[in-house]
């Protein structure tokens, strides 16, 4: 009976396992984030938070599909001032927290990121990739130039590890990743949701109040795995894989494509917060069976570059 070590070192952060709660799913309040960490997540990424409170888009803001979820929450958040207290409350419980931030300009992002770090976040994740909020997310992260400039600006003011979360709605996500690396990001996170839409023929209109939304869940896993694989060939910094992970095998696909850790969002809907524990158990069993002793030994092996 071997015993695989699930621990992961990520830019100096020590995670007890490679799973993290993805930004935007059950992470707007401290109480919930603590519950999810207790259920097994190695770390939690907060809801993306900006300078001022935002209500987000009107309802309907989710469409449940057989292949995943389409959402247009519209980045609702209480603003960084209020949210700092939530971050502190989560930290008090000993949970590793990555603070996700949004902003309409690099200065705004830098300001929010600094406050997020000051509140005690163990790392800051820049959401450069939300596909459905005007002036935020993708709109400031769609070109390599933008990504590099924003990362550099935030890097200046933030000492904790800096993650750049990238959009797959591009012709080359590896160019975005290279830009993030040049800008000083310590790691990249891929992928955010794919821009999508669902229409109700009976109503003759898009279902989401915002019309456009972001597709997540099993549908996007092949795209996410491909993105991580491409990025792994393009940069030296670590990658966090996200998109459609709900089982250990899914997580392993990302890890072997090149991800040092994974994030899980939509599967919390289908499998509940217990999904983290279940993924870890699957991964651990696989490692025992296939003779891997550390998660790090599996990272990127699908490139034929087994270390």
């Amino acid at each position, binding site marked *: 009976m071997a015993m695989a070590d699930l621990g992961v070192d990520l830019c100096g952060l020590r995670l007890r396992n490679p799973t993290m709660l993805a930004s935007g799913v059950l992470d*707007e309040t401290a109480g919930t984030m603590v519950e999810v960490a207790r259920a097994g997540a190695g770390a939690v990424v907060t809801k993306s938070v900006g300078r001022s*409170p935002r209500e987000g888009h009107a*309802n309907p803001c989710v469409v*449940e599909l057989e292949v995943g979820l389409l959402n247009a*929450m519209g980045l609702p958040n209480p603003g960084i001032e209020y949210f700092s207290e939530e971050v502190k409350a989560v930290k008090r419980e000993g949970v590793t927290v990555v603070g996700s931030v949004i902003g309409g300009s690099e200065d705004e992002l830098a300001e929010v990121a600094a406050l997020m770090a000051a509140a005690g976040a163990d790392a800051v994740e820049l959401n450069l990739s939300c596909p459905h909020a005007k002036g935020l997310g993708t709109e400031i992260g769609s070109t390599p130039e933008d990504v590099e400039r924003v990362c550099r600006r935030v890097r200046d003011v933030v000492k904790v590890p800096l993650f750049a979360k990238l959009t797959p709605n591009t012709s080359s996500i590896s160019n975005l990743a290279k830009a993030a690396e040049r800008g000083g990001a310590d790691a990249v996170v891929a992928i955010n949701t794919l821009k999508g839409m669902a229409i109700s023929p009976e109503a003759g209109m898009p279902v989401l109040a915002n019309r456009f939304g972001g597709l997540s869940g099993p549908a996007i896993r092949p795209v996410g795995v491909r993105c991580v694989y491409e990025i792994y060939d393009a940069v030296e910094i670590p990658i966090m894989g996200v998109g459609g992970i709900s089982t250990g095998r899914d997580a392993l696909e990302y890890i072997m494509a090149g991800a040092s850790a994974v994030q899980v969002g939509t599967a919390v809907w289908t499998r509940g917060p217990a999904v983290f524990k279940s993924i870890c158990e699957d991964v651990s069993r696989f490692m025992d069976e296939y003779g891997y002793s550390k998660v790090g030994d599996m990272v990127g092996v699908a490139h034929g570059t087994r270390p």
Partner: protein
Amino acid sequence: MAPGLRMVRVAEHRDESRSVKTMRFQGRMEARPGQFVMVWVPGVDEFPMSLSHTGERFGITYQVLGDGTKALSKLTEGDVVGIRGPFGRGFSEAGKRLLVVAGGVGIAPTAPLVEAATKAGKEVHLVLGAKSAEELVFEKRCAESGARVHVSTDDGSKGYAGFATGLASSLLEKDAFDAVYTCGPERMITTMMGICKERRLPMQASVERIMKCGIGVCDSCALDGKHVCTDGPVFGLDELERFKELGKTRLDRTGRKTGI
């Protein structure tokens, strides 16, 4: 991962009182009493509504409040709305003598409970509270199901004059009950919690919070780490007591706690 949205036609739309209406839909929906659906009025809004009728021609009973329910109130037979659900955990019946306390439109999720419990051979007493006599909803329906209906009105225009909690309290005084079920304004719930705790009576209450996703991903309905949409909307007394926010604060649409 079931495809969630179901487009259904309105089968019937009826006034229950001046501001409360019942809308029935074509088709079936099986659900436990206390479960809810998200109702989409195309082009307007989507919001949570308890099922006041389950099975064939399932339906909701709602108070006309703001833009969403106003738009809903204009729909007529044959119009199409979107339904997601049923969601959440419903009431779970325990014991033989039940006291159900419903305030205002809180009768929507409790009426199916009353019907299910009487059908299961239980003795059900219902305290039906409203502002005034004209606002009483489902009095006849619940009486016909075999429940003992005790009416209370704030203005005394019918039955007991005062809050439903007052009438409930005096019933509990007189008679022994095995469990209490309640739905209504949050103050009513917290009052009933005090009464039931004192008497060591099991109690369940249906709670409301802002709902966006309805499926446990967005955190907008969070209540001290639990979620009204998936862990609730019905909670037991133990859980209710653990909620520090109950009766005090709720999240607004940005996720900030605001006073109730």
